[in-house]
């Protein structure tokens, strides 16, 4: 039975989540050097086109189609066959099936776009396109099925992931780690300065991400109800708290509060609350977000110690923040907030933390190994990194024959 309010809310939420990917493009675009601004924006922007086509043709079917052994959906919904305008019996039963499909499409779009920050300023555009096709098909679709697909094994196990802490953030963060281990560092890494060229652009992108995240998390209630309102509130509280804690952490450690720190903190808080949004109270969200700001800041600092070139800190923010959020869900989840969820450790159910831990480990292992194999193969076949000369001239001119700024 279609509910008008629910349908309106999910369609609007889908538009909000769509807007996050161009927001991410600006968030990343401001952090690179000016010669790479268009290429960086493009790596997110074109994914809207590419993944949408994949999703409609086979991605949605693999993720949400009839279950095959708990691992993946079958291809029987290829080309959205049977995905119509009446509700599905399994997913979001009060809205048209296509509304659910397009909402999920936006998640499938932003997840690989997140990874692009890791190899910003050096990835070949042609190789990127092929990587996205393979990653969406072989990594994202199965993972989404495990957690959210009807019959998926992690969902059946009782793992809680409200809006994609494992599927979106851990998977993109861990894939980013695999990517930076394979793709060579940027030329001059450790000697030259890679200073952000336009932080106002990054702050604008952060604002768009924060705005869109309300659709991401509240929309994941899949109905216009109290749960959506709760998720909306926890989302905002976590982002706000994390922007403060990151800011204060760097103020103490580096003597200056920076705008990039405030923006990064907000994103870290949004990442961490994503799996927990519909399962925890606002005060729990405050703690989850507050710690996310500090933990992710430490994660980013660790990068230079470990010596890998994760250009825009995808591992430190999405990998670390997503892992913290998934585990925190096992600590703070409460059936008083959401009777459809479970109690976490702090509400007398230590078993939930174990289940969350299993889902984190499964996601990390799967995403890392698959991404590693995909990129190794692509590296051998077509190469992943641009030539030294192209890198020095910048990706805007060499990959796209355009310049972001002419003066």
């Amino acid at each position, binding site marked *: 039975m279609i509910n008008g309010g629910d349908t309106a809310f999910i369609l609007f939420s889908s538009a909000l989540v769509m807007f996050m990917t161009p927001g991410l493009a600006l968030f990343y675009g401001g952090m690179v050097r000016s010669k790479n601004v268009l290429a960086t924006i493009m790596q997110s922007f074109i994914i809207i086109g590419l993944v949408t086509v994949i999703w409609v043709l086979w991605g949605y079917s693999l993720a949400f189609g009839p279950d095959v052994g708990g691992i993946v959906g079958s291809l029987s919904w290829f080309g959205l066959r049977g995905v119509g305008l009446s509700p599905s019996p399994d997913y979001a039963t009060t809205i048209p099936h296509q509304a659910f499909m397009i909402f999920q499409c936006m998640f499938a779009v932003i997840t690989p776009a997140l990874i692009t920050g890791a190899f910003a300023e050096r990835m070949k555009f042609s190789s990127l396109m092929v990587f996205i096709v393979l990653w969406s098909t072989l990594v994202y679709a199965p993972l989404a099925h495990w957690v959210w697909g009807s019959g998926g094994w992690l969902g059946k196990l009782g793992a809680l992931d409200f809006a994609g802490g494992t599927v979106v953030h851990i998977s993109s963060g861990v894939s980013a780690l695999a990517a930076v281990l394979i793709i060579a560092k940027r030329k001059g890494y450790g000697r030259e*300065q890679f*200073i*952000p060229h336009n932080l106002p652009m990054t702050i604008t992108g952060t604002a768009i991400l924060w705005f869109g995240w309300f659709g991401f998390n509240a929309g994941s209630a899949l109905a216009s109800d109290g749960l959506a309102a709760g998720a909306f509130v926890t989302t905002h509280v976590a982002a706000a708290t994390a922007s403060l804690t990151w800011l204060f952490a*760097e103020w103490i*450690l*580096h003597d*200056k509060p*920076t705008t*990039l*720190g405030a923006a*990064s903190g907000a994103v870290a808080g949004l990442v961490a609350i994503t799996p927990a949004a519909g399962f925890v109270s606002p005060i729990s969200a405050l703690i989850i977000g507050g710690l996310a700001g500090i933990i992710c*800041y430490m994660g*980013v*600092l660790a990068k*230079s110690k470990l010596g890998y070139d994760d250009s825009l*800190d995808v591992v430190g923010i999405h990998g670390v923040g997503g892992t913290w959020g998934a585990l925190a869900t096992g600590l703070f989840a409460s059936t008083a907030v959401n009777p459809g969820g479970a109690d976490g450790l702090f509400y007398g159910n230590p078993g939930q933390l174990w289940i969350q831990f299993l889902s984190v480990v499964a996601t990390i292992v799967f995403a890392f190994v698959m991404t590693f194999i995909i990129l190794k193969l692509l590296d051998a076949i077509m190469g992943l990194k641009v030539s030294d000369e192209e890198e020095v001239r910048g990706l805007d001119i060499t990959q796209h024959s355009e310049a972001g700024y002419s003066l």
Partner: protein
Amino acid sequence: MKKIEAIIKPFKLDEVKEGLMEIDVKGMTVTEVKGFGRQKGHTEIYRGAEYRVDFVPKIKIEVIVPAELVSQAVKIIEERAKTGQIGDGKIFVSSLEEAIRIRTGESGKEAI
């Protein structure tokens, strides 16, 4: 005729300009420049990573004055641009062979 070039702190530009206008300097050229002297750059922090930035933003002003105005102009720039802190800048004076005013074709002192 002399050319005075001065590298100064950007926020001191207005004071220097006003001072030079008081002594009837006819015009000046201003450029935003970057460089380093003994101050040797500054530090910027992005996500906790400290970057040493070697080139600091400065303002370069160029004024052409008749020989009799040089010492006065230099004194004004020196006084007005001074903060007493490191990085106040430098003043260079050099001789100028010729100046031509494009619109009228005047040359020498008249052209300034």
